[in-house]
């Protein structure tokens, strides 16, 4: 397979909320993504997946750990040439279609912002031509160029966001919950669009979402996060076939399937209680408070991510 484009080692991002209150949004996460691959990242609200995405792309400085994108240390000191290169080759698609576009700018200028910054267009004519071409590649057309964001539906705005990200022809895109605010039929449109763009432009995706079925459809490999830790990482079919971590098992069994016969035959693992508060977390397996197979060794420290089967990593003292 292709070579590694992004490598994240032991990444942590903490927020100090007050005197003694530290929110460990991301706490020691390591993974890597190969060129052309899509890594899905799932987890419930408060698990730190969005913070991880924004730290990897450089919006938040990492508290600890290292992020290497094609040899460039994203978190550390960067030359202006490197900063330019990163701002061209790494891009992000956001969640809320209503706040991810500047309401006061025409779609033409929104998409062309990247082109202007990196002087990719010789003159205005070429700039417009490139924007129209980008609009067509996301299923919109010239007629939409001179309109303002508030004139579009949610799904169309998300496609403008994708066109903007593609404007600087990046090789790596982080999609931070791009479809959770959309209707089911529109979600499928956007996901199919992302898949076809990946093939055409050999893009690499980090796809962050909480809707597991959609993540399975688009991802080659999936990582499951819980309270700042990566608890399991495997190929998507392997993960759904043999989930090893108790939380992943509970998560997968909680998904209601759109198939009544399958639903009737299923017995569900229902987790007790709810996610504990992410502030001032103890240094032990973060899931132990809700885990059926809890043992003494779970409280000794955060279990490391261990490769139990080829390509299948899990962070749990019992499974290893």
């Amino acid at each position, binding site marked *: 397979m292709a070579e590694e484009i992004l490598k994240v080692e032991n990444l942590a991002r903490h927020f100090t909320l007050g005197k003694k209150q530290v929110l460990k949004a991301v706490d020691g996460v390591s993974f890597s993504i190969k060129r052309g691959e899509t890594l899905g990242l799932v987890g419930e609200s408060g698990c730190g997946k969005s913070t991880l995405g924004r730290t990897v792309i450089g919006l938040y400085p990492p508290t600890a750990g290292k992020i290497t994108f094609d040899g460039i240390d994203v978190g550390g000191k960067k030359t202006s040439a490197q900063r330019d290169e990163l701002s061209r080759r790494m891009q992000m698609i956001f969640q809320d279609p209503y706040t991810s576009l500047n309401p006061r700018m025409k779609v033409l200028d929104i998409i062309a912002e990247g082109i202007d910054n990196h002087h990719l267009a010789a003159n205005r004519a070429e700039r417009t031509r490139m924007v129209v071409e980008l609009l067509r590649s996301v299923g919109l057309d010239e007629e939409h160029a001179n309109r303002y964001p508030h004139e579009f539906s949610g799904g169309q705005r998300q496609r403008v966001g994708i066109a903007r990200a593609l404007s600087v022809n990046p090789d790596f895109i982080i999609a931070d919950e791009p479809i959770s605010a959309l209707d089911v039929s529109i979600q499928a449109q956007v996901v199919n669009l992302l898949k076809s763009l990946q093939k055409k432009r050999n893009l690499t995706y980090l796809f962050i979402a909480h809707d597991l079925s959609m993540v399975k459809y688009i991802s080659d490999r999936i990582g499951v996060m819980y309270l700042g830790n990566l608890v399991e990482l495997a190929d998507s079919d392997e993960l759904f076939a043999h989930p090893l971590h108790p939380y992943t098992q509970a998560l997968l069994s909680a998904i209601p399937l759109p198939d009544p016969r399958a639903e009737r035959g299923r017995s569900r693992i229902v987790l007790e209680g709810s*996610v*504990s*508060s992410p502030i001032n977390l103890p240094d032990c397996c973060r899931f132990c408070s809700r885990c059926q197979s809890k043992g003494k060794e779970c409280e000794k420290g955060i279990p490391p991510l261990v490769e139990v089967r080829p390509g299948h990593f899990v962070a749990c003292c019992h499974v290893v």
Partner: protein
Amino acid sequence: MARYIGRRLLYMIVTLFVIVVLTFVLMKILPGSPFDTERFEKLTPEQQAAALERYGLDKPIPVQFLRYLGNTLRGDLGTSFYYTNIPVTRVIFSRLGPSMLVGAQAILVGLAIGLSLGIVAACRHNGFVDNFTMVIAVLGISVPNFVVAALLQYYVGLKLGWLPIGFWKTWSCSVLPSLALCFQPLATAARFIRTETLDVLQQDYIVTARSKGMSQARLLLKHTLRNSIIPVITIMASMVVNLLTGSLAIESIFSIPGIGGLFTESVKNNDYNVIMGLTMFYSLFYMLTILLADVTYSLVDPRIRVAGEKEGE
């Protein structure tokens, strides 16, 4: 909570210090010395020196400032020139009564009418009451209170003779001034509560309440007002201040022996010590009102009072 109040008190002290410095500087560069220039020339050089020395004006500026600061801390704000040799603090407190009475009456009447108008306006959105309230609210803010006072004094006081047009003999003397002052709080309260109530009426928990099948009255009292009345506290502080400044003009129109009138008087007579004392009094009073409003707000709103760790989330 205590830490919060502590921090706020610290800011008040800093602000007061800034004001003391400001007033001291103003005192120094005010035109004309503390007493009539003609009288001062007539004095012989020795008498002049003695007078300056008695008021400590011969010492270098920083020393004067320290003495001024020392006195202020001890509550001795010097003596009034106009009311010869009566300590400023006593002058101020002697005139506090009427202002407080007129101010309190204006606020109570203003709030009572303003809030009820605003609430009814919000409930019957775009109805007659709503438009009427909006007109009253705009007029209340637009018509300066001293114009209202002048008109009330002339037409109601003089022409119709229903109420005394001035001075401070019986309670009825306080009616016209309070009326003149109450329009602004009335308008502000009406506008504010109307917007807050309209806001609350759009919230999801109002739909939940309606789905319980309760009467309009109960919905209004137990759910709508319970949430829209709390923010009113935040505008109380600014209302009180507008009244203080409003009273400056009203008290001179109705010649009421209040601190508002005192301020305008001492401005006219260049009675600096009183002016500085009043400035500090107003600032202190204003900051205490803001602090009181903030503390009351956090006590009344359960979301702040009962922090409590949220289980999960």
